[in-house]
Structure formats: C-alpha cells, structure tokens
C-alpha cells in the first residue's frame, strides 16, 4: 500500500470527530436513498436500472457516432462543440476565448471533470478569477482543498471550520449559525454572478438527439452560472452522452434518488444553444467542451469500459463500509469510494496507487446500489490482478506469492492441513481483547509484519471446525 494513502487512512481512523462526520453524513444519504427507491414509491426501480444500464452500454459502444450527432444538433441550435484531449487544451481554449472577449471573472458550478484537470488553478495562473459557486465547493476553494465526496464535497467540514474559513478568507465576523453562513455565501456569490463574464458548468448528461446539456442541482448556482453571464461553457467528459431526450425519463428518476434520496433534484436544466430569437435572457454564446483526458484508453477493453457508465451519484460511496471508515482523502485522486478505486488506476495507471483496488472488502454493496449496474467488485478484482501481475514482472511480492503457494499446497493435503490447524493455537500469540493485533518477536519480520499491521485476527479456537463437525 502506498505510504501516502496509508498515512491518510490512519489519520482518518484516529480522528473521532471525522469518523463521526463521515459515518453520519453517509448514513443519512444512504437511508434517504433506500427510502426513495422502496417498492411502494418506485415500483419499477429494478427495471429502470436495467434500462439505464442498457442505454449507457449502447451509448458507449457507439460513442463516436453519438458524439457526432450531438455536435450536429448542438450546432443547429447555435452552440459550438470543442474537443479537447487534456487539461492543457481545455485551459488554452478558455484562456483564448477569455482573451478575445476581454473576460476576467468566471463563475463556476460543480464539475468533477474540472477537478480532474485543476482548471481553476490553471485559469488563475493567467490572471482570471474563477469562483466556485456550489456552497460546498466554494468552502473548499477558500480552504484550498479538493472534494471529499462526489455529491457532498465538504462533508468533512463542520460549521466551526466554515466559520474559521469565512472569517479568514472573506473578512466577515466569526459566525457559527449555518443559515447565516449560507446567507453570507449567497450575498458574496450573488455579486459575482451578476458581474461575471463567463459561466462554466459541468454536464450530468449530453443528449445526442437534442444537442443539449443537462444539469442537475439543488442550490440554483448552476442555473445562475448558465443564465446570467453572456458566455456559457459546459465542460464534460465524452462519456456523458445519452441517445435521446426521452431517455431522461429513465435517468432522472434514478440520479437524484440514488444521490440524495430526492425524487428529483430541485433544478434540472435542459440547455441547448444560446438564447433564441425573442428569448429575453440567457447566454449569447454557448460552448460544449468535450474532453477525453484518458477516457479513450478505457474504451478498448469491452469489460472495463463499463467504468464509463458512471453517472456520479455517489451511492457506492455512501454504502461502502471502507469509504465510510477511511473517508474521501484516503483516496489519492479526485474520485473516491468504490468508483474511485475503479477509475483512478485506469486513468492514472495501477502504479499511481497500487493499494487502491485492495481498499475494498468486496462485499458487493456498491454493485447492489449502482443505478446503472456497474459491476464494481468484478472490476476491482481485475485491477487487483493487474497490480499483482505488475508486481510479478517487476520482481516484487515474492514472499506473498510463496506464502500463497504454500497455503494452496496445504489446502490440497487435508491431513497436513488439519495438523497445521491443530498446531496453530500453540504458535499463535495470545490475543489482546480477543484479537490478535500483531505477532511476537521472531516472526514479526517485514512481510508478516506488513500483513498483520493491516489486519486483526481472531485467535484460533481451541477446537477446529473439523473436530466439532466430527463429534457432532
């Protein structure tokens, strides 16, 4: 396991307040999701999941043609599609446009893709002001932190943290009442919305038959970012395509329910092109930036390309017993939880954080809640295998392989296996508080130590299962 990840995990496990915050918040989101998909309120939930999976699979398998269709329809409505292969190209496009239009102030609504490519930092380096307007994202931008969770980015911050951040960065009085903190953000950001030259948004869906961007949110900041400034730029991964506007009747029923347990989010915006003749407000220019940033690499493998079906609801995080303990910052990249463990190694390479696919108990809860039925446990297993193959070819993990070979051999010899089982209690250290937390002295050399450092074991029972079975 990488040491950086290790350190974050231990920090999180040792922080009682943080443990409580993460468990409470994810627990609440999880309970709300369960209530919102219960058979009495959404009887066709499982059918909708099956349909959503089929639609995503179909769209991804024909992605090139749908991108072209999207582009044609967008341009028919006066918008413009811009393809970018990576972070630098996205930044260059925006900087170029800002220069041409003399733009200085950008308001931004939540977008995970812009987190992937550190867009704010890139723009600010060139003298543009780029302000996050989702309350959670705004708090994190002021604190210089990255999102802790896909849908609740500032989940780890308390009202006291926010009071510190606001008074230090905005020069407002120290205020711990959440309603008043929200009002402060509203007032500060309202000025920005009305003065901004450009609004940047992400996209929850790109609708091919309409050339439309669909945005789902609760605060109204995405609506403001895309309505008030003269220029709207939506930035989206190419995998966000769905075939038809009518497919939203499937996806919208699943997204908010899976994310927060709402039946629909407060605002769902379906936007296609700049304002039309006669419309009183809305942007005069409308761009959709279609970003690769590693996505085409994931497409080649027919089994793994399902990682690109994700609609970023965060349900797998809320239900994951590992995420709920180790929290968002233990994951080394912008995506956390089970989907993060699947996306990060594929985007960054397994060497980036080889421990990641192992940060799962493979209990399967994530696959059960995924609204588009991504087989997350299977993908995690495959990525584990990638990590081990890499270890093997680079000559790492010899001890572990030897231990597993020995174990496999033992398993094939029932008599010896039983004998070993009987001997185990003699060699095993006495567990403190009923658990073995480490092994003593001589046996505590690196490979075993590394193993037991991460795992507590119940002491071997006096009588084995086989013995109990025989004397039954």
């Amino acid at each position: 396991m990488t040491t950086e990840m290790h350190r974050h995990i231990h920090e999180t496990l040792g922080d009682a307040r943080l443990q409580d915050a993460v468990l409470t918040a994810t627990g609440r989101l999880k309970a709300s999701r369960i209530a919102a998909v219960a058979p009495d309120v959404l009887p066709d939930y499982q059918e909708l999941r099956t349909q959503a999976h089929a639609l995503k699979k179909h769209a991804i398998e024909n992605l090139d043609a749908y991108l072209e269709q999207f582009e044609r329809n967008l341009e028919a409505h006066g918008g413009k599609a811009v393809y970018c292969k990576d972070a630098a190209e996205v930044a260059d496009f925006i900087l170029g446009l800002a220069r041409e239009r003399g733009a200085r102030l950008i308001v931004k609504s939540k977008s995970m893709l812009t987190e992937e490519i550190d867009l704010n930092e890139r723009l600010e380096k060139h003298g543009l002001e780029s302000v996050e307007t989702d309350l959670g994202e705004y708090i994190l931008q002021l604190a210089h932190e990255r999102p802790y969770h896909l849908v609740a980015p500032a989940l780890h911050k308390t009202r006291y943290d926010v009071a510190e951040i606001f008074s230090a960065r905005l020069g407002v009085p120290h205020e711990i009442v959440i309603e008043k903190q929200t009002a402060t953000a509203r007032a500060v950001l309202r000025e920005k919305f009305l003065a901004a030259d450009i609004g940047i948004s992400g996209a929850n869906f790109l609708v091919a038959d309409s050339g439309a961007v669909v945005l789902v949110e609760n605060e109204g900041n995405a609506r403001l970012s895309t309505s008030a400034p003269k220029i709207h730029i939506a930035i989206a991964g190419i995998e966000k395509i769905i075939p038809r506007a009518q497919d939203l009747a499937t996806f919208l029923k699943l997204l908010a329910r899976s994310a927060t347990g709402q039946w629909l989010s407060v605002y769902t915006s379906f936007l296609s092109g700049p304002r039309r003749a006669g419309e009183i407000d809305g942007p005069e220019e409308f761009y959709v930036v279609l970003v690769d940033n590693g996505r085409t690499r994931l497409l080649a493998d027919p089994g793994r390309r399902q990682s690109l079906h994700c609609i970023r609801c965060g349900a797998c995080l809320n239900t994951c017993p590992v995420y709920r303990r180790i929290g968002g910052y233990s994951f080394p990249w912008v995506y956390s939880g089970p989907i993060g463990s699947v996306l990060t190694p594929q985007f960054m390479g397994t060497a980036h954080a080889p421990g990641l696919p192992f940060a799962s108990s493979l209990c399967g809860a994530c696959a059960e809640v995924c609204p588009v039925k991504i087989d997350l446990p299977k993908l995690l297993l495959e990525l584990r295998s990638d990590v081990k193959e890499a270890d093997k070819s680079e000559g790492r993990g010899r001890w572990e392989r030897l231990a597993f070979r020995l174990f496999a051999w033992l398993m094939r010899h029932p008599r010896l296996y039983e004998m070993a089982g009987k001997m185990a209690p003699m060699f095993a250290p006495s567990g403190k508080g009923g658990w073995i937390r480490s092994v003593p002295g001589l046996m505590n050399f690196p490979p075993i130590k590394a193993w037991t450092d991460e795992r507590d074991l119940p002491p071997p029972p006096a009588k084995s299962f086989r013995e109990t079975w025989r004397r039954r």
Partner: protein
Amino acid sequence: MSREAILQSVRSALGRAAGQAIPEAPPVRIRLPEIDVEARIASLMVRVEALAGEAVRVATPADARAWVAAAIEGKQAVASNAPFLAECGIPALPGVRCGLTVESELRALCATAGVGITSADYALADTGTLVMISSPREARLISLLPPAHIAVVPSSRILSGLDELFAKFPLPAEQTSSMVLITGPSRTADIEQILVRGVHGPGKIAVVVVG
C-alpha cells in the same frame, strides 16, 4: 482542436469505422399512468408541500389574482409575460412590474424584487415539479433571482410526471434554449447535512393551481 484525433481513437477502441451506422438503441421506456385531473391536482399539492413549498387551489383567474395580491402586499414583484398571468389580471396589481423585454432592465428588477411571478408550461403531479420553458413569455431570471417565486398554473397543464412530459415533448430543444424543471425551493445541505433553503435561488415557492 483535437476533434479528429479523439473521434479516431474512440473508433479504433470500439472497432468502429467512420460513418458506421448506429445499431438500434434500446426502445424508449415511457409509461403513461391513467390519472384523472383531480388526482393530479391532489398529488401535485401534496408533493409541493412535502418540499416545504406552499400549494393552493383557487377556482377562477380572479381568485388567483386575489390570492397573489394578498401574498405580495407591500412587496415589489416582477411578473413574466405569460398570457395566463394577463388573463388573471396579475400584471395590473399594485407593486407588479411586467412586460419586460430588455435583459438589462429585467435583470436589475429581478435583483431587487421581493417576488418573481410566473406561470408554468407544465407541472408534474408525481414530483411536485414546475416545468419552465424559456421564451418571450417566460424569462429565466424571474423564477431564479428574487427570494420568493409564485407560479400560477391552470389545472389543465398538470401532467402525471416525467414520462408524460417527454411523451408530449420529445425534443424540447426544437422549441427552446432552456427547459428547467423546478422541484421545491432552492436548498443545500453542504454544511453538516443541515438543510437550508434559499441558497442561490428562491427560498420560498408557492404554486397556485387555477381551476
């Protein structure tokens, strides 16, 4: 910039050729329940109130005007150019500005008004949702900038839900640059999961069903 390069790497990863047709997509899944008007109205009102919005039903356009007049008393309001609001006589109420067609003027008024008054193109009964289609009759900012939003909707425009909306309106982009579904007041739970209403959009929403 990288258009061709990206499309080409997508094609080669998928084993597709340029211009290759798309196989048939999974059939659209639209289910239209049969619900009569009274049940739609009842469901809409229950859902709006479940989201801490206010829902009222009045018999006639004149009753709608009276309700709105009482609700905005002493406040500055901006009303949209929706013909139904005119039919109710709402633009003539004291304190109401209406008939705006210039963006700068509209924006300045919406930024200071206490209430935004609109109609809605449709409402969705099963989720308590207003469907706002941007047009010369409905601007975007009226339901967005003021701290309170009142929507006056004829009962005939209440659809059962998303499925009926997309059945009636399979290609919204053919008619508008912006269709927004509004489900309850603006809200956040970003700090400690505590629900706060009225973050960037209106913290108060009232739906007046007419007829």
